[in-house]
């Protein structure tokens, strides 16, 4: 069976420095894969390469057996890959609802004239966008619904901003979701809640998920498979238990001097 996404020999160089080298990676439909590794291991670069923000120096990225190399980020999103950002990047002055509605841009088509003439098609589409947005927000329980719809995103608490960002990624109707440290900065209670939600993202919405995470409990609880990166090179992969006892991994996390933390 072919993979949903496959990465072959990916290499990315920034001015002589290899951010990633020789990365082979794949993810199958319905999997939850975690990518872990010390800071500066190239995890975010890896996401940036998939979403088209960075052009790889070598290698190929296949999504659904087609190369997505050289596509613009919005085209990648259009194909069904959505992501969140490590340092939550919402549209702060737009309302919660608008944040979600705008994410459906690539699934909709109305332009100037529909809006000006208020055509039936335009109204229909707006209705659908709004309904879908509310449906997505309802996934997070009562936190982002009701009066929250019309609040600008910047008033939200930190945890809610993280949730909203995930909701925004969901709204692009992806097949593959890339979550960059979804629970960073959350307290244990919120972490547990979000861990459960990540599981439900797969079971209820059918997303395939690749996740960068530092919190090992989350990694243990939800991942089918764990990939460990260090210095741009994959050093181990397998189930959580296999990886966590792998001596290379232990060394990567504990046995290096502090100067590697970039």
């Amino acid at each position, binding site marked *: 069976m072919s993979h949903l996404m496959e990465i072959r020999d990916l290499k990315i160089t*920034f*001015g002589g420095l290899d951010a990633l080298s020789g990365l082979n990676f794949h993810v199958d439909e319905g999997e939850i894969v975690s990518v872990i590794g010390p800071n500066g291991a190239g995890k975010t670069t890896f996401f940036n390469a998939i979403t088209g923000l*960075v052009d790889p120096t070598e290698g*190929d990225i296949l999504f659904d057996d087609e*190369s997505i*190399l*050289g*596509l*613009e980020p919005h085209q990648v999103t259009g194909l069904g890959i959505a992501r969140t950002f490590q340092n939550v990047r919402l549209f702060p002055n737009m309302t919660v609802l608008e944040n979600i509605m705008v994410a459906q841009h690539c699934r909709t088509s109305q332009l100037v004239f529909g809006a000006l003439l208020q055509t039936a098609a335009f109204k229909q589409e707006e209705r659908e966008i709004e309904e879908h947005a509310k449906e997505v927000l309802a996934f997070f329980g009562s936190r982002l619904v009701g009066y929250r719809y019309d609040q600008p995103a910047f008033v939200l608490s930190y945890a809610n901003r993280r949730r909203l960002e995930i909701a925004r990624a969901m709204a692009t109707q992806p097949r593959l979701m890339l979550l960059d440290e979804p629970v960073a900065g959350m307290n244990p209670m919120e972490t547990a809640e979000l861990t459960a939600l990540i599981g439900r993202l797969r079971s209820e919405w059918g997303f395939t998920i690749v996740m960068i995470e530092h919190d090992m409990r989350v990694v243990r609880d939800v991942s089918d498979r764990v990939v460990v990166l260090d210095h741009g090179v994959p050093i181990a992969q397998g189930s959580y238990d296999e990886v966590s006892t792998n001596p290379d991994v232990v060394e990567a996390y504990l046995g290096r001097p502090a100067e590697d933390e970039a």
Partner: protein
Amino acid sequence: MTATIERKSARQVSKVDRFLTLIRVFLVSLIVIGVLAFIAQQVAPDNPFARWRNPDAVGLTGDQFKGLLMSGLSQGAMYGLIALGYSMVYGVLGFINFAHGEVFMAGAMTGFIASDKFSESGMWESNFLLSLAIIIILAIMVSTLAAVLMERVAYRPLRDSPRLIPLITSIGVSFFIQNAVMGVFGPSTKSYPQLPQWLSKQRSILTFEIAGTKLLVLLVAAVSMGGLWYLVERTKTGKAMRAVAEDKEIAALMGINVNRTIVTTFAVGGAMAGIAGILWGLLFRSVTHMTGFLPGIKAFTAAVVGGIGNLPGAMVGGISLGSAESLAPLVILEPLGVPGVSQLKDAVAFTVLVLVLLFKPSGLFGEQLSAEDRA
């Protein structure tokens, strides 16, 4: 591997890109044809290609060409001096100080007021070099003060806001200074006093006929540039400036006084603009409250041409822009049969800006990636 590369090129080209390619091809062929026609006219004014667009073309004599080049160079040297200020501020704070042209104008205006007074008292004629030194120092002081005040009042409170906010603010500052100067000193054009004959007379150097004033401009610009280079590359202050440009927070952690360094940057940029202001006054002998506007924008263009944030680049950019501005109308446009080319001088400067940004947005010597672009 090859297959993926092919697909990349095939899929990435959007309509906008195609259109841009079209523009690029069009502009380049325009320039090439213009230059070829110019060469054809120089070689033999009667050949059909030379007469194709402009049957009346006479071409340029060698002396005319050299004269244009010299004007271009001296004007370009001043653009370069002003461009240093744009470049330094952009390097350190990452925004375009639109009002920097006004700092230059303040220098030119100060020079006028002082030299006018000297001329009234007769000192301008009797002791020219001393008066020149004094007006240069005065202009440097006023321009530096203007730049530092600007930073303190308008830009410091905005240091952490999005890039466009300080740019918009600087547009306001620019308008304010222009019109305040107009209000205080009147809207009339002010003329610098006549320069002594021994300075302004034509001199011949390496077969180049050049007016002494232009020579002075080139000389002073070269000395200032050398001084600046020494300051930035060889002194502790310069090191601090480079460190702040690299990363403000880390620089602060390393014990560098970021505020003071930024003020120094503005001050040094202001001083350079002040020198340029005096040179402008000596060369063109007239100054108004609007003097800073066009040279300011052109100097920004020069900074972009050389690669913004790069100091030697700013100087090279200035000189290239000055030469292009003085040569292009006659070398490219006239042979194509465009009448009244001298009116299009300013349009040429802006076209250079557009061209550079179309072909090499990072400029001739600029670095490709800023930290933000990579993130």
